[in-house]
């Protein structure tokens, strides 16, 4: 009979396609890894003069002065971390509540369009957020939000000092708005992925809807929600144009959130075209290296968390 032979031939053909496919997949992945490695290597190479000149001092000195060729990134690190922290705090709280509402409480006719709008918000280019921040939010901070905070919470140093409109707080608010869709959309997905039997178990034990969500669903979703927040943090840390437009661009460390500040990404974007001198350029590249490392670690961490959370779901 030729049937076994036929079958063998088919198997052989399938195996060949499988192998070709495997090779293609490995090649694609390999290329990708190679690209990342190259990017990293060229960043290290580009920042070598600065790395040699300043060493670790680069990270904790506060002078950022192209005129005297003194480069310390601390104010920029400070500005980046604080603006992102404000953003993550606000977007985290609002986003998780919104996600819980969408996933658990909103009727379906409302949840669908709302989720859609929120996801659309994620597609708005950041320069648009920057413009809005500059022309709407900054004046609002100067004339109403700032004075109000100062009047009620002015005893805290973070709400002291003159209010310019642009500054850390404004940048944090714009960033919060920008990452809110990320936090909300992913958290909603994670919350919905919590198996129905968990909710039913709680309901059957006499828990109210609210007790079920707060006591069972959210705790079960916490790893995934944390992942969503860290992912959003990655975006906030690296956001360039919107922050540049509203943070005030001054490399100083001040206690007040109303004070202007500067971020790693903004400095690179603002100063690269006019940077002259080997050290200046390589100091900027080193900022890029810092940003690369931080984003890489933060994003990788977030994705691992999300992956485990959604798979378990």
């Amino acid at each position: 009979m030729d049937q076994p032979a036929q079958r063998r031939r088919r198997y052989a053909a399938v195996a060949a396609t499988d192998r070709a496919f495997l090779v293609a997949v490995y090649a694609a992945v390999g290329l990708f890894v190679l690209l990342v490695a190259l990017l990293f290597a060229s960043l290290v190479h580009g920042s070598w003069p600065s790395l040699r000149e300043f060493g670790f001092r680069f990270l904790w000195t506060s002078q950022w002065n192209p005129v005297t060729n003194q480069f310390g990134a601390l104010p920029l690190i400070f500005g980046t971390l604080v603006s992102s922290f404000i953003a993550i705090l606000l977007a985290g709280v609002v986003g998780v509540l919104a996600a819980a509402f969408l996933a658990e409480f909103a009727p379906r006719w409302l949840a669908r369009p709302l989720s859609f709008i929120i996801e659309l918000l994620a597609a708005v280019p950041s320069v648009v957020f920057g413009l809005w921040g500059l022309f709407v939010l900054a004046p609002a901070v100067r004339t109403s939000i700032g004075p109000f905070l100062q009047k009620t919470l002015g005893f805290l140093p973070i709400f002291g000092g003159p209010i310019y409109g642009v500054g850390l707080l404004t940048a944090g608010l714009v960033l919060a708005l920008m990452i809110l869709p990320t936090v909300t959309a992913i958290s909603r997905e994670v919350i919905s992925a919590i198996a129905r039997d968990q909710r039913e178990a709680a309901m059957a034990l006499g828990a109210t809807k609210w007790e079920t969500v707060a006591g069972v669903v959210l705790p079960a979703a916490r790893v995934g929600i944390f992942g969503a927040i860290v992912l959003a943090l990655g975006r906030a840390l690296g956001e360039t144009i919107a922050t540049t437009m509203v943070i005030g661009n001054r490399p100083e460390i001040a206690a007040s959130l109303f004070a202007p500040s500067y971020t790693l990404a903004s400095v690179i974007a603002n100063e690269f075209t006019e940077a002259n001198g080997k050290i200046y350029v390589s100091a900027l590249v080193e900022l890029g290296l810092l940003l690369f490392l931080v984003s890489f670690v933060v994003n990788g961490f977030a994705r691992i968390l999300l992956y485990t959370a959604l798979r378990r779901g």
Partner: protein
Amino acid sequence: MVTGRALGTFGSIAANADLARRAPEIEVAPKLRVEKLDVHYGAFQAIKSASLDVPENRVTALIGPSGCGKSTFIRALNRMHDVTPGARVRGRVMLDGEDIYAPGVDPVSIRHRIGMVFQRPNPFPKAIYDNVVYGPRVHGMRDRAQLDAICERSLRRAALWNEVKNRLDRSALDLSGGQQQRLCIARCLAVDPEVLLMDEPASSLDPIATSKIEDLIAELKADFTVVIVTHSMQQAARISDFTAFFLSGSLIETGTTVSIFTQPKDKRTEDYITGRYG
């Protein structure tokens, strides 16, 4: 004759379960009385005018082929359909003479009195202890000593205490499937319900774990009224006092387990228990 044939085929099951030697059931007051229950999922009617009395301190088994509406029926008994999108319930379910679907009745308070154990073990991803005392905590109990006592009592009743007493703070997800199911039963008992609904509680368990759960149910009926869905007719015969047979959404026949298994009145019941349906 129907009777003769059913007995002939099922002599072995009946003998196994000692059905023949069981005393004839005397009248027991119904704990739950279901009257003309209809359940719709959207336009689809999953339960068609089902009426059933569930006697107190007895085990009532719901049997029938897959998809006939057993889960739908049992979930109507503690208002779990309130949270199923698209589900509508009509008719009455009287608990001690009061309709749990009457306007103004709080479904949460009903679920305190009517607990439920699901087909798949569904412990919370928390410590064993926190799983057991979840219900009492939700109902406002904070006293640690009291909670400890409830935890131990419930786990003992669920025949799980000896296996977990030294690791109450470990995650419930580390338990085996059978242990998880007994944990879910303990969690349910901790609320001290009057009625225990069980939807195929042993379907994902091996024979040893299954027989543990069955022994447990036999003990529990002293204190609780039990309604259990099962796919296994042997199990129904072993553990239940009353049996209700469903077919495509209709309650075909109810009666004492002895009579259903030895003298089914309806041809369709007989066909099912003799294995002529899936």
